[in-house]
């Protein structure tokens, strides 16, 4: 662990990644203390200062009802991160368990589970989430459900492949010979070998969840106003291009910076943990 961190901090690119992730996470946690206008996360109207180009104290400008873009972006990070963490916290255990069971048990269980997984994987991810959101009311909670529903199969696929390779390994056979239960073999013997790959994928996925969630809200199918969201900010601002460029450019770059950070860290982890699939 200490070695991993040391290597992370040595390479300039992964250092940049760690820095970006740290800034995003800290600003999301301490948003109330950082932003100049904490109340602008809600339905505040300040027509005296609406649609202003960046100028002090509005370093990213103001939106069409006069709210500080910088404050709203920082709060949007908070929502994106919560969404990402919740989605992964639900999707990963489900996906991993299904993958382990399908890979280890084989036979009809494997066939049935993997075909169900295939079904989920054969709808373009965004389209699946969209159709779920279309049926449900567009709220943060439903957004999480929709993204979770499309996310778990990717972990099933990943863990399934590792499990199939690992179950022929000596240590698994040894455990079986001494009569270990299936549960023991699956969760105590095989699962630990999947962990590096899972952690790497989770780091990369935190970025992708942000992308998918912002895509949903960009289409108006995600988080609803007045809750700040990077995707809907870009969508709202796109109508006022190119004159009010700050309405789209800053939220867009905010997505890019956060996801880029997670990807840099994920890439570095993949190299360090040797978790190439």
């Amino acid at each position, binding site marked *: 662990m200490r070695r991993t961190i040391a290597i992370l901090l040595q390479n300039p690119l992964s250092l940049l990644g760690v820095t970006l992730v740290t800034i995003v996470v800290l600003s999301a946690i301490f948003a109330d203390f950082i932003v100049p206008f904490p109340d602008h996360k809600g339905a505040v109207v300040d027509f005296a200062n609406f649609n202003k180009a960046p100028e002090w104290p509005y370093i990213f400008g103001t939106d069409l009802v006069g709210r500080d873009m910088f404050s709203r972006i920082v709060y949007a990070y908070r929502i994106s991160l919560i969404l990402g963490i919740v989605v992964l916290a639900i999707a990963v255990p489900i996906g991993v368990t299904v993958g382990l069971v399908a890979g280890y048990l084989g036979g009809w269980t494997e066939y049935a589970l993997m075909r169900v997984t295939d*079904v989920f994987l054969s709808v373009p991810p965004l389209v699946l989430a969209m159709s779920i959101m279309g049926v449900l009311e567009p709220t943060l909670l439903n957004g999480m459900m929709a993204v979770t529903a499309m996310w778990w199969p990717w972990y099933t696929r990943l863990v399934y492949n590792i499990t199939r390779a690992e179950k022929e390994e000596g240590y698994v056979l040894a455990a079986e010979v001494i009569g270990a239960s299936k549960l023991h073999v699956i969760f105590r013997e095989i699962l630990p070998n999947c962990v590096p790959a899972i952690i790497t994928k989770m780091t990369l996925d935190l970025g992708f969840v942000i992308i998918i969630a912002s895509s949903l809200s960009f289409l108006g199918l995600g988080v609803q106003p007045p809750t700040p969201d990077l995707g809907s900010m870009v969508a709202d601002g796109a109508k006022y291009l190119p004159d009010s460029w700050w309405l789209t450019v800053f939220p867009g770059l905010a997505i890019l910076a956060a996801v880029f950070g997670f990807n840099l860290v994920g890439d570095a982890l993949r190299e360090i943990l040797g978790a190439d699939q």
Partner: protein
Amino acid sequence: MSPVVRLLAHRLGMSLIVLVGVSMLIFAIARIIPGDPARIALGPNATPEQVENLRQALHLDQSIVVQYGFFVADLLRGDLGVSLYTNRPVIADIAQFLPATLELVLAAGIMMIGIGLPLGIISARYRGRWPDNLVRLVSLLGVSAPSFVWAVILMLLFAFFLPIFPIAGRISDIYSIEAVTGFLLIDTLIAGNVAAFGDAAWHIVLPAFALAVSGIGQAARLTRANMVETYDKPYIEMARSYGFPDRRIANRFAFRPSLIPALTIIGLDFAAMLGNAFLVEAVFAWPGLSRYGVAVILRKDLNAIVGTVLIISATFLIMNIIVDLLIAFINPRIRHSQRPA
């Protein structure tokens, strides 16, 4: 039976099973909808009798299994029902909007392959040196933003700031082209109107590129990763020992074996563009499935939602089959059954 035909048959069979699964999944999702679709369709002024009649007509009064049975029976006749939003057959709506989306996705796919693979090759060939570092940085940036962000940035830079490309649409208003295939790039050529073809091609560049950016990054990263692995293989050292130029070793001896594992995932990404096309279409006012899809979702237009998702999934599966066949074509192990001499 040749191995390729066997593979095709197998893939088609699997896809059919998956498609049935998708139809059940999406049907189930659509039926857990809160609220009465018949009531929504008829509006608040409808009488209870009218609502009840529509419910019966739509089989909404029966169990979900029966409803699914009716749905499949209709589907087999090529009938996806009537959109409650446009009051037209869903299949007609999709037929009208899908070609524009497909045209955009195909153009982006060509860019993804045409730019992403060469970038990956360069990266692997100059591993550890500046071209590699540059490509890795750029491709990682490419996959780090949703396509609507790239769409907005590209539009700002190359349509507003440097007015090189048109801001929106598929073709300038001055041209009126008869729709034959629905693909403007083909229809303009059928009409023999070269100027219109050029205009349509000019219109598609920015949206397609915005859609392709993350695919290009993904393709470059995958190609590089697989080629770096291939470079350690004995047959590359053998090629070096024969003094083949570096460029030939990269483009011919290392690239093709590396392409086989990369292509599967590149194919998935290519197909995923069908979803992301929604985002780009929204920015560039591209008259594809996006506006229709979002509109029917917001209106809870069941038939249209189910139909749209099914058609997109079927297209996605067809694309995957094409990719599998491509892989079979470049991978002699699949094309020829193994028979050691």
